[in-house]
């Protein structure tokens, strides 16, 4: 029996002498990955966030009154608390986008240079930098003051908020530096990672155009900031000649920064994901945009994927098929209102592209630059015409449709009503269909078209929001800095105008 005991003892001691250090290893996840793959994921995350319709993530298309809701109009009534939309936007852009751009930059900077031309690597890093600047500019344009110099660093768990204008100016200089580094003789991140332009050499020129279009917009954004007139001028005037310049003559041509999606989840178009895959019927076009498009006899209405609604004539007989929008801020009947055609064949497709910036936007910005008195080639009217023509053709209209459209007195630049702000603002608002943030920012800067505050709105938001309120999580996790930032921008309200938003009152709140 002693033998048995000895055997037992030996067994136990052998088994228990396994080295601890070899355990706990995570054998399933990655310790090192290609920086290009991190860039790929971050870029998809950015475009998904900017273009999704999901009421938890992005309400900008409701704010600019392109869309209304059917049964549950809470978000159209500016409820940003029940569903923490500001937090979800902030988290997505900082954590899933900017942090990963930072990491991609680090990985590529530290990656082996064997077989890599330093100029190619420099291009790759500059492209990531351009995307970072885009994401950062969205953050400032959406919230105002935000953590910047102390952001993206876990060792500073309470990052301070930087002044929005100071951040914006730094972004412009970063963008200038990135543009200077982009060398059109070299390629970029590779065709499987750069899903917008591919990574080949000729497309680097497109990257330069894209970066300059962004720069143009950032300059224009500062044009109402009196103290930064000089910066706005140089920024706009150096960017203008290098912005997108190939007109869009069909849905597939011209200059644009557009991401084409794939057929299968989770890589489907974010609008398709929300409107088709969800199987829900939550959104209809608003009467605000539908009435405007109807009044202008807009040739883009079918291209906007709008459905028609059958209206009865006075005798009660079925008669006409018309576009009829839903009331914004109120419950609407899906069937009785114009909504997105989600048919797989003729409507919204999984693979549909989203457009971050394009020739249309460049031309609207140039029209604005001309009106603001900056030195750019062409006239406000010519850029306006180019922008509208480009937009009509992108949404499936013909060149003739565009000409006819522009010939209407209500559209023609010379005869359309209002100031240049109203003319450009109204057409840009139509031209930025589906592009929530771009449309919202354009409306806030130009203050046109005049929108209507939701007749029923939540108690703490009294008009169409002109910024996202700060994330509620910041109140609990970064309270002191949050409080200071809220005071600095003039109160953490959705109605607080940001530093670049200096135009006239832009919505009618008398609606009852």
């Amino acid at each position: 029996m002693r033998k048995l005991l000895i055997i037992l003892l030996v067994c136990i001691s052998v088994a228990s002498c396994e080295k601890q250090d070899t355990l706990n290893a995570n054998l399933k996840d990655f310790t090192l990955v290609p920086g290009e793959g991190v860039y790929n994921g971050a870029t998809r995350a950015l475009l998904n966030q900017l273009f999704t319709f999901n009421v938890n993530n992005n309400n900008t298309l409701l704010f600019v009154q392109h869309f209304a809701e059917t049964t549950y109009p809470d978000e159209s009534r500016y409820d940003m608390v029940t569903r923490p939309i500001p937090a979800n936007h902030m988290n997505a852009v900082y954590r899933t986008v900017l942090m990963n751009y930072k990491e991609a930059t680090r990985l590529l900077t530290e990656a082996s240079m064997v077989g890599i031309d330093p100029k190619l690597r420099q291009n790759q890093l500059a492209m990531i930098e351009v995307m970072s600047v885009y994401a950062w500019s969205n953050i400032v344009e959406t919230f105002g003051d935000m953590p910047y110099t102390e952001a993206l660093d876990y060792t500073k768990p309470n990052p301070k908020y930087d002044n929005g204008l100071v951040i914006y100016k730094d972004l412009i200089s970063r963008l200038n530096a990135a543009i200077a580094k982009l060398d059109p003789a070299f390629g970029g991140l590779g065709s499987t990672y750069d899903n917008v332009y591919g990574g080949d050499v000729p497309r680097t020129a497109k990257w330069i155009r894209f970066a300059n279009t962004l720069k143009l917009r950032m300059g224009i954004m500062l044009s109402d900031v009196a103290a930064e007139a000089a910066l706005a001028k140089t920024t706009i005037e150096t960017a203008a000649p290098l912005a997108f310049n190939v007109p869009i003559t069909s849905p597939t041509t011209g200059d644009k920064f557009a991401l084409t999606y794939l057929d299968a989840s989770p890589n489907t178009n974010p609008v398709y994901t929300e409107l088709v895959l969800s199987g829900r019927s939550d959104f209809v076009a608003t009467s605000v945009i539908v009435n405007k498009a109807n009044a202008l006899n807009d040739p883009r209405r079918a291209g906007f994927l709008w459905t028609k609604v059958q209206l009865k004539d006075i005798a009660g007989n079925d008669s006409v098929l018309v576009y009829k929008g839903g009331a914004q801020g109120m419950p609407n009947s899906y069937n009785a209102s114009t909504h997105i055609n989600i048919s797989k064949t003729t409507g919204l497709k999984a693979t549909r592209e989203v457009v971050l910036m394009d020739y249309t936007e460049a031309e609207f910005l140039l029209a604005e630059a001309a009106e603001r008195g900056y030195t750019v080639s062409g006239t406000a009217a010519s850029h306006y015409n180019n922008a509208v023509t480009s937009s009509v053709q992108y949404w499936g209209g013909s060149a003739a449709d565009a000409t006819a459209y522009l010939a209407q007195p209500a559209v023609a630049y010379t005869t359309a009503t209002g100031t240049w702000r109203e003319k450009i603002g109204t057409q840009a608002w139509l031209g930025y269909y589906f592009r929530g943030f771009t449309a919202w920012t354009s409306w806030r800067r130009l203050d046109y078209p005049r929108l209507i505050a939701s007749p029923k709105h939540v108690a703490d938001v009294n008009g169409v929001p002109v910024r996202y309120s700060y994330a509620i999580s910041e109140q609990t996790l970064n309270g002191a800095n949050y409080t200071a930032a809220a005071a600095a921008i003039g109160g953490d309200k959705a109605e607080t105008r940001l530093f670049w938003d200096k135009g006239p009152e832009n919505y009618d709140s008398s609606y009852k």
Partner: protein
Amino acid sequence: MKKISLLLAFLGFIGLQVVFAQTRNLSGTVTSGDDGSSIPGASVIVKGTTLGTVTDMDGKFSLKIPPTAKTLMIAFVGMASQEIAIGNQTTINIKMTAERLDVDEVVVTALGISREKKSLGYASQSVKGDNISAVKTSNFMNSLSGKVSGVQIKKNTNMGGSTNVVLRGSKSLNNSNQVLYVVDGVPINNQIGSAGGVSPQNTGGVGYDYGNAASDINADDIESVNVLKGSAATALYGSRASGGVIMIVTKKGSTGKKGMGITVNSNYSFSTIDKSTFPTYQDKYGAGYGAYYGPDEDAFFEKRNPTGGSTGTLFDWVPMTEDASYGGKFDGHPVYGWYSVDKESPWYGQPKPWQAAKNGPITFFEKPYTTTNTISIDNATDKGSVRLSYTNYDTKGLMPNSSLKKNNFLVNGAWSLTERLNATVSANYTRQEAVGRNSTGYNDNIVSGMRQWWETNTDIQDLKSIYDLTKRNISWNYGPSLSGVPIYWDNPYWTRFQNYETDSRNRFIGNMAFTYKITNWLEAFGRVSADSYSEIQEERRAVGSLATTFGVSRTNQKSGYLRRDITFSEYNYDFMLNFNKDLGSDFNLKGILGSTYRKTKYATYTASTNGGLNVPGIYSLQNSTSALVFPIESNSIIGVRGLYASASLSYKSMLYLDATYRQDYASTLPVANNKYYYPSVTGAFIFSEMLKQDWLSFGKVRLNYAQVGNLAGYDQLLDKYTAGTPFNGPIYALPSVKNNADLKSESTTSIEGGLEMKFLKNRVGFDIAVYKTNSKDQIMPVSLSQTTGYSAWYVNAGEIENKGIEVSLNLVPVQLNSFRWDLNLNFSTNRNKVVSLYPGIDNLLLGSFQGGVTLNAQIGEPYGVLKGTNYTYDANGEIIINAANGLPKKTNSASVIGNVNPNWMGGIQNSFTYKNLTLSFLIDIQKGGSVYNLDMYYGMSSGLYPETAGLNDLGNPVRDPILGDATAGYGAKSGGYFIPGVNVANGVSTPNKTRIDATTSDGWGYAVQPNKAFVYDAGYVKLREVSISYTLPVSLVAKVGLKGAVLSAVGSNVWIISKHLPYADPESGLAAGNVQGYSIGSLPSTRDFGFNIKLNF
């Protein structure tokens, strides 16, 4: 099922052997040693045989005994059992003495070491196995509620769902706060749910409560349960026991009682719904959100022709796209609806009268029942003992198409190999199979629909008929086009019979141990134990269902199949040297030197189809429409090695001093910090031994100090990237939580004092424990502002303090000859406080719920406070209402609006014994604690509840339009209602008079009130258990060859005497774990009634 019939045949064979020659008479009297009175009903049995009788009214007995009879066993409830040698006697008079309650009770302590309870310097409380197995539920822990002080047991209503068990409050900010289950000295796995940690299911996302793994322990095999509450009691178990330990001793073949014994136990239980835990619906208004329908969007009904088209003559149609009951008033006029649409429908093209449904949602539920059958055989010889048992448990749930089956086999054996060497072995195999667990949370949960989004005109039995007829997903909730899948809610019968989950688990728990007596004061002990299981969970969505979050990508999928494979194994190797030596006549020293090693592996593999199923009805990964999204793989292996020593010094059974010291060496900590040490000291002084007073049967004070170290979780040190489904090229991303390569061990320090006294020959006794526990340097993912690029970062920081008092009181108010009343009271209160978190951080987010409510650990507050929007109050504490619109002025979402920890808990157990009949009942009380209820948040707004459809203060229907206004005064016929509170203008408060318009769904619930309005007191008083049992007289059962027979009837959760949460059980939740205090779409509670027969052969 072959095994059962085999056992039964065996059983019959044994029964035949009970034939003995009876040769001589033996008679006598049984009296009480206290007062000399005779004891009727005492059992008198010849040991080792089935021969026996009971004493008559005069305490006399007489029986015939065979020549081989050597010993007589006498037993009576409340008296100490005796064994008396028969010898040549023909008359034996026996004096029985009252049983000394608990004093000499032997309990099983850490590492499976048996100790006299009186010698312990810490609190522990035992419950007998019979007390646990009386009520059959899928989880034996449910039966412990109210029976032990200091334990919070939250049984939820999910079929086979997990039970939350927390001892003396939550001590860990991030790690599990569940107790450790130890069976016969071996810790066993208690993985909760599918994912561990906080999964989307925990916070109301789509998913199932897959139960907790400790529910594999078979209640019928439990001999006793001992609850070790404080750190001092559990220090030798190391880190995993910081949440307390439930020590389970399984039934063994007893060496004391030679010979074969067979026990058969059969139980049948059925359940009925406790209607106070399910909605009561208003019966005045039907479907809709207001008058938004018809061609002009101003009517309560849609207009269509009888087949749904828009041509010809148009009639009223139910607004079927809506899932609320804020529509037209029931008036019986003919209305077309979902039943009119489908060509196969018996009501195709036909209207029905507009009225409240005859068969409401409650008729959807079925009558659950459970059968449990156990057979066990034990045998013992001089050389050892063995017990075999088999249990078959089969339950049918509340939901259609739901069932849970378990088969459990257990072998326990002990064998004296030599004089010095003893071996024991235990092997337990369990197989569990579940079909159709109920989906929990917000989406795809039928009960959420019934509680939040429902049309009161929908007759559930009509939905059943049409599903039975067509086997298609024809729902009450058609989309706008009246074709394709429903808009928000599938037909519930479709969901149950097509979109059901299945899961199964095979588990083996076993150990083998040897004890070698080296000398008479020193022995060596070695044990190897294994706990392993493999589990598969399969989730389905049939083609034809509406899209919902599903699968690995958690995106909207219209159909699909998911499988999750889980394998777990843990090996524990223990080696101990035990010594036990008397030092002189007064002192005794016991000691242990031990080493332990555990290695735990947990691996999961989850894969699902993507983009739907290609061919309907085939649930396989190959049937994916699109290429699969990357499966989720995890494979964690951790190891902990421990060395420990313990010494117990005692003086004259009066003074006991114990000390332990343990070192752990954990693989989950960085090499520099992976060894850590912790001590404990306990002392007990039995002052009754010194005082020697008659009135004082027993008196003890105890005091202890203990520290317990805790290791990090798996993979919290090094940063890793995650891979996403390739987007043309591969996709990688940083994780959202930043790891930390400098982690060190956590530590929990506790001090505890206690006083235990018994009086009047043990008829009155109490036990009080007071403790304070501080858990420091906690390893937690501190929530970061996500502007840092991370949502959280693992750090060592933070401290939680728990302070509490536990009292248990045992009384025998009445003890007569044949009647006895036992009364046990338990009371415990725990105050829990988050002392600190990481510098600069004052809040740790534990979970986010729908509606903007969060569960948090905030400095200065208890662990688990709910935050959300609150009312604002004036100086007098009145709610401030905006005079312009009648709505309460809300705070932002950072207000503390509730605390999920109860103020105190208590249990009152009464047991009455008259001869062989025992009646007992248990009242279980929880005072305070908060629960946030999403059902009322939405369901009020949807107009489901009677509150939204009654009369207002003016006696008018509240849903009528408002006439007039607050300044001019309201018309006598005005509808609407006002919220009690004040309007504040220029610092002056005046009573609020402004009415809220309740003509549409905007008038109630979340549209009006802050989150605080939906936080309810989770307290309750429940009649938890009522049982009656009758032990048949031995004289009677002996005639049919039995040694004993017990019949019993048990009612469980019989009556919720008091609660504050409307229409739901405050205990019902999503799953066990650190995220509590959220009630959403839970199943109603049931009252369970069981009948039990136990036969001993």
